[in-house]
């Protein structure tokens, strides 16, 4: 067989998952100049961009502009998109092994970490990711039901997702109507009775995961005031010392903003968002119908680990917070792929700098790689996945140079397309997406919105005039 990576015999790569990391991986593969590469990207949903479309909040359109970079990659002649094709359901890893020299899993982290406390699965207790996917019009979450008739809701966690959920619950219908939030979610939120939203953090203001712009934005909502209890806004001596020691300006600024929210009690006319610190839910309390009516909170204090981190520790003092709706947002977690080694305890594919590792031999699995959240866990901003993808592509190039790759029976681009067409005739191409995108944007334009999303696969097929 001739050398791989030439024009006549390009390196054929399958990328599984069309989120930011999938596109960054493709971009890095095209950017290197050593070898010719062709990329086929497989995606479970008909549409590309993963969490940029279905995770990033609808009132954060600017963040979504990163899709322009991805679009540039997708328009290259060496790139193809196969949407609506699920690994394990429609195609298998063995199918990919027959057609590609290398496979990269970039499936992200699709589910929530669990709290493991009593009553977590009561009615009206939801994972934040479900709510996020629902208001973003994710086809799998179209039929979720959230009881917005209650007046008080709590969001457990102080990360970016928790902040998004708090904002969406607190915004006015007018604010939301300017976004590309799913129509059904806009209608449901229009009828919402929620007056008070609690965001609950285990540690103090100096350790909160949300960023300074995010916390500042909370103070700029039209119909809702932000409030922090003065006692909880004040730094404990350990945090004070750590902050002074690190001279970290971003955290100092964040703490200042949080403390400014403690200065002015919220107006009784407004909705309110109350950020609580140093509290951990220890139980969900339900009524006879099995619905959440309150959370039991344990008050925490901070202690310093040997390595210098300030961690929460229970004080023994508890309180009851009456809330009728709870969203758990303590972090995303990866889901195992059929036929791919998984590290259950951390929710990632077992890997070493992106090379998938066989758990029995501790050796790399030939030709299989991973990048992004399914490789290292859910952390960082969208762009953090770019250096992560670069690391994986570097490992791929090293392996290719060392002759470590799959030897597919049918490495041609046509053979791969025929395989997909045989197994999933109604797959969506990138051209299909461009057409859907155009229609969505046009539908939005009439209403002064960025787009009006299609929210079911059937709708998308119909819009493309497929029978």
């Amino acid at each position: 067989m001739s050398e791989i990576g030439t024009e006549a015999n390009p390196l054929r790569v399958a990328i599984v998952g069309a989120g930011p990391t999938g596109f960054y991986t493709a971009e890095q593969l095209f950017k290197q100049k050593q070898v010719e590469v062709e990329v086929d990207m497989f995606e479970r949903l008909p549409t590309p961009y993963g969490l940029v479309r279905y995770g990033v909040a609808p009132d954060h359109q600017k963040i979504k502009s990163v899709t322009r970079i991805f679009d540039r990659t997708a328009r290259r002649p060496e790139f193809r998109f196969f949407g609506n094709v699920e690994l394990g359901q429609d195609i298998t890893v063995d199918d990919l092994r027959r057609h590609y020299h290398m496979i990269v899993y970039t499936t992200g982290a699709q589910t929530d970490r669990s709290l493991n406390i009593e009553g977590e699965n009561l009615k009206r207790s939801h994972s934040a990711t479900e709510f996020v996917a629902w208001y973003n019009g994710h086809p799998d979450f179209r039929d979720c039901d959230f009881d917005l008739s209650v007046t008080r809701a709590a969001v457990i966690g102080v990360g970016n997702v928790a902040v998004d959920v708090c904002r969406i619950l607190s915004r006015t219908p007018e604010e939301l109507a300017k976004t590309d939030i799913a129509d059904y979610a806009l209608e449901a939120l229009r009828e919402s009775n929620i007056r008070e939203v609690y965001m609950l953090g285990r540690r103090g203001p100096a350790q909160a995961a949300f960023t300074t712009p995010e916390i500042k934005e909370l103070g700029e909502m039209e119909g809702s005031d932000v409030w922090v209890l003065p006692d909880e806004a004040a730094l404990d001596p350990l945090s004070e010392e750590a902050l002074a020691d690190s001279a970290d300006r971003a955290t100092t600024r964040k703490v200042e903003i949080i403390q400014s929210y403690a200065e002015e009690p919220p107006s009784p006319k407004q909705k309110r968002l109350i950020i609580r610190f140093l509290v951990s839910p220890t139980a969900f309390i339900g009524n006879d119908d099995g619905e959440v009516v309150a959370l039991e909170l344990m008050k925490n204090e901070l202690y310093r680990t040997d390595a210098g981190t300030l961690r929460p520790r229970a004080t023994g003092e508890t309180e009851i917070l009456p809330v009728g709706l709870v969203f758990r947002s303590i972090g995303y977690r990866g889901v195992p792929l059929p036929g791919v080694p998984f590290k259950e305890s951390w929710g990632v594919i077992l890997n070493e700098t992106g090379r998938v590792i066989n758990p029995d031999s501790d050796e790399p699995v030939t030709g299989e790689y991973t990048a992004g959240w399914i490789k290292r866990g859910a952390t960082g901003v969208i762009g953090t996945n770019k250096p992560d993808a670069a690391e994986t592509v570097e490992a791929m190039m090293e392996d290719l140079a060392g002759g470590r790759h799959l030897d597919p029976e049918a490495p041609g681009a046509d053979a791969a397309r025929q395989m997909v067409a045989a197994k999933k005739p109604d797959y969506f191409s990138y051209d299909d997406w461009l057409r859907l995108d155009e229609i969505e944007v046009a539908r939005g334009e009439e209403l002064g919105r960025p787009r009006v999303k299609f929210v079911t696969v059937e709708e998308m097929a119909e819009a493309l005039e497929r029978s």
Partner: protein
Amino acid sequence: MKIRRLLATKGREVITIGPEQAVRDAVALLAEHNIGALVVVDDGGTPVGIISERDIIRRAASSETLFDELISDLMTRDVITGVPQDDVYSVIHTMTEKRFRHLPIVDEGQLIGIISIGDVVKAQRDTYRGEIDTLETQIMADEA
């Protein structure tokens, strides 16, 4: 970011050595795995110390029998260990302040990995690169 995230891409293997083994064995392991330190564990797998290339070089300056000496005679005993929940930023700060370069990570008494100063520097660099890239993208979107 938590230390756990850094361990996620390091595979499973943690290279360890016993306190009764010889420096010769340590040198061989450091060279074979291209690393700078080994966690010293007792028979039960509990970390009892750490031995770094620096420990070995220091002893080499004054010892003619270095290679036959026991690990337990050279190792640092008061090892600072981390937990998977430690924040990367706190770890960077502690490593810089206390001037050590390897942090064994222990979870419920079990050694599950080791983090080097190189790992935390890389994590911090990638975090910054990612943030800059994201900000640039947004600024360019504003201009478009």
